[in-house]
């Protein structure tokens, strides 16, 4: 590889400085993105390990692999780790961190030091969480429902609560940084209607992070105080109200679903036009739908509480509003589909993930319609139907998008290509494994198997075995990219600056980009997704 030697000479953000200090004290958004990548991957495998143990326990109806208390800790920490330490930071803190400045033609984020601070907060939170896990763990579920969490659980609730509290500040700072950056640092000519939709999605996400996260932070502080000082805010024997906790918790935690899914939608909205060689269908509507999801997302929290003891009329209002928030999601699915119309489509790995995303997200969204239907929700809430539904959204949707994005921008991040055929294989395995794992859970839920059950009646076994089988397939699908990404860093083909022939400023700089992103400050005088004027690459044309 003669070209490799020549390209490797070029100075870029990776080879500009060496040594551990140059990484730990970096203020370069791209290096911070990689720090995040390492940390969230670590937590992803911890969360995944818990998930595997959960699935193994459920292989048989009896509780036999682990103790009941251990099982309760496993699903609690699986949820906390996957949500607060993997999914919420995943796309924003890794891909968003890396791409937001590149995509808008900026040198860095608005506050590079705050960006580093947010990673350190994440690490402090992570260390606390790991310490909590190693010294006994926590068994409250990721939902911390009171009065169980405040007065009955004898596990490390305070420590877990504080860990999530701190990670929340990391999330707030990232959101703040993005909002300011998108407002203030756009290159000349990069108007709001020329922004990549990835940026719109991150803008909407940041708003939720800024407005929602403080609420969950305060709620967790209240839980900690109530537990430590017996305040009586949620404890009915002291005049408190346990439902107050649920309102506060879901006020953040419902929008948090959109923190996880919106960035993923942003990723897919970049991938689909690129591999269709077309501008996105209905740019304005896709952008607006992100914003309306962020806004309406704040008005539907009590749909988690239809059987919790809220009033009939509150339930009616929250059900109606939940249907309203489904409309912008539907709009997105239709626009992605329409973008394919009269395109020139290739099926590279990122595109396969995008297809997977659209399929699984659609199923997740449609089953959301079941849950928002009041009379039906009574039967299926708190069963495996809900478990299946949110995994279709958060794993089938958010995680698929994250993997698609990692494949799409990996050449830019690492300067290397991953093996395309292995990439496609992994995408297929993930898709099949995912459906095998979670589809049976819809049936289990309708049959009435409650969630968070350590042991269950024997008639549920067949479906549980299928689900566990799927989980092992899924695990292979996740390990594979991890292996070939690492492999490609050394042995992968050297990536050209724009391997996919994609639009967007990030592709106009070198792969990997130099520390200050662009040798010349870019000036934008074209519209977004200007595929008419970008030649399709040679490589992507070949099939299988």
């Amino acid at each position: 590889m003669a070209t490799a030697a020549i390209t490797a000479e070029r100075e870029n953000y990776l080879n500009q400085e060496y040594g551990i200090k140059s990484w730990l004290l970096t203020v370069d958004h791209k290096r911070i993105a990689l720090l995040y990548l390492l940390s969230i991957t670590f937590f992803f495998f911890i969360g995944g390990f818990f998930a595997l143990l959960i699935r193994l326990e459920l292989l048989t109806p009896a509780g036999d692999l682990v103790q009941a208390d251990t099982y309760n800790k496993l699903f609690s920490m699986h949820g906390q780790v996957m949500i607060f330490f993997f999914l919420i930071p995943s796309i924003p803190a890794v891909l968003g961190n890396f791409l937001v400045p590149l995509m808008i033609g900026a040198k860095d984020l608005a506050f590079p030091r705050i960006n580093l601070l947010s990673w350190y907060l994440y690490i402090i939170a992570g260390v606390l969480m790991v310490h909590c896990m190693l010294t006994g763990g926590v068994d409250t579920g990721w939902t911390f429902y009171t009065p169980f969490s405040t007065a009955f659980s004898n596990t490390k609730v305070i420590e877990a609560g504080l860990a999530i509290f701190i990670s929340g500040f990391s999330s707030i700072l990232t959101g703040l940084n993005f909002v300011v950056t998108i407002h203030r640092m756009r290159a000349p000519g990069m108007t709001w209607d020329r922004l990549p939709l990835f940026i719109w999605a991150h803008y909407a996400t940041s708003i939720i992070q800024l407005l929602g996260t403080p609420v969950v932070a305060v709620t967790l502080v209240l839980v900690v105080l109530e537990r430590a000082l017996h305040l009586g805010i949620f404890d009915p024997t002291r005049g408190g109200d346990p439902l107050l906790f649920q309102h506060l918790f879901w006020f953040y935690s419902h929008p948090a679903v959109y923190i996880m899914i919106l960035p993923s939608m942003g990723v897919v909205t970049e991938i689909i036009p690129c591999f269709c060689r077309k501008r996105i269908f209905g740019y304005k509507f896709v952008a607006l739908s992100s914003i309306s999801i962020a806004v309406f997302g704040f008005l539907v929290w009590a749909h988690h509480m239809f059987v919790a003891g809220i009033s009939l009329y509150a339930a009616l209002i929250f059900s109606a509003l939940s249907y309203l928030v489904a409309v912008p999601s539907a709009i997105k699915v239709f626009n992605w589909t329409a973008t394919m119309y009269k395109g020139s489509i290739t099926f590279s790995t990122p595109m396969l993930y995008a297809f997977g995303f659209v399929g699984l997200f659609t199923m997740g969204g449609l089953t959301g319609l079941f849950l928002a239907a009041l009379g039906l929700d009574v039967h299926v809430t708190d069963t495996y139907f809900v478990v299946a539904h949110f995994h279709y959204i958060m794993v089938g949707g958010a995680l698929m998008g994250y993997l698609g994005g990692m494949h799409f921008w990996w050449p830019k991040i690492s300067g290397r290509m991953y093996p395309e055929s292995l990439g496609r294989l992994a995408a297929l395995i993930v898709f099949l494994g995912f459906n095998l794992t979670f589809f049976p859970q819809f049936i289990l839920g309708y049959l009435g198997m409650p969630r968070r059950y350590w042991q269950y009646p024997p008639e549920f076994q067949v479906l549980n075995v299928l689900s566990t089988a799927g989980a092992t397939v899924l695990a292979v699908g996740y390990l594979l990219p991890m292996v070939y990404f690492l492999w490609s860093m050394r042995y992968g083909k050297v990536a050209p600056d724009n391997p996919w022939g994609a639009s967007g400023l990030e592709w106009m700089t070198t792969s990997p980009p130099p520390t200050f992103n662009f040798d010349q400050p870019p000036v934008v005088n074209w519209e977004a997704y200007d595929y008419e004027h970008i030649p399709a690459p040679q490589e992507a044309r070949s099939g299988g």
Partner: protein
Amino acid sequence: MFDTFPLWPTRASTTAGSVDALFIFLVTLSALMSLVIFTMIMVFAVRYRRRKGVAAEQIEGSTALEVTWSVIPLFIFVVIFVWGAVIYFKERTPPRGATEVYVVAKQWMWKLQHEEGQREINELHVPLGRDVKMILTSQDVIHSFYVPAFRIKQDVLPGRYTTAWFRPTKAGTYHLFCAEYCGSQHSGMIGQVVVLEPAQYEVWLSGGGASGTMASNGQNIFQQLGCSTCHRSDTQGRGPDLVGLFGKPVQLEDGRVVTADENYIRESILTPGAKVVSGFKPIMPVFQGLVSEEQLNALVAYVKSLNPSPSGAAGGPTVVPSGAKPQEPKVQ
């Protein structure tokens, strides 16, 4: 008793049929919607796969299309919303004349008591074809009363009552699950609902060895705790007359008007100061911590039984003159 590999849950209540109908409708609708979307994606993927010399056609978008595919789903959503709301409304409104069962949940068991006085643990016997209203509360954390065969679920909260109801349509034994995570033995907090033919049920009821109805137990407690010194039916007492209270609007000292439902009676006993009846002084002692959940249930059942007109109240209309046997509930 249970199939080894069922694909559809048993349908054993009047609610189950309507929930299933909506479910089938939604499954069909979702299948159609995904079929449309996935077929379009497939067709486009094949029809517009990359070919030499054929470039993509740049299309800006179409406001007409955007409006169409926003309004049509919205319209469908309204239909689902209304359908779901109608079922929910029925689920949340216990019919009059239902027999009542008081449920106290605790880590990790269900304690149930029929208004006729029978007590059960983790097992509930109910008559076929009759409405049963559950009045639920928890002694510790939040639990959830879930009978999949009836398609009903209701969270059970500490410090207040929630209610649920069902009418069984098929004799048999069905799962009772706790559906809200409640600690170590959450998955062990299970039991059975046994639906009996009415005749069998009467036999079961008479063999229970219950010492009096809940209302008559309640009356004893009412006496023991000295409630009767203030609450008397001769308007001479220092407290309001409780006869006919249940289900009626109550004018409060602070101007509010509330309906005297189970939660109101419960609160009036535990923390009387929270809602003081207009025209009375807040002299009633606080009973919070002095009565057990079971005693409280009996007191509530007693106060409810003091209703002269069966049609007046929504819920527990049976007239139980002190100490007398409850009247035979009618099969509806």
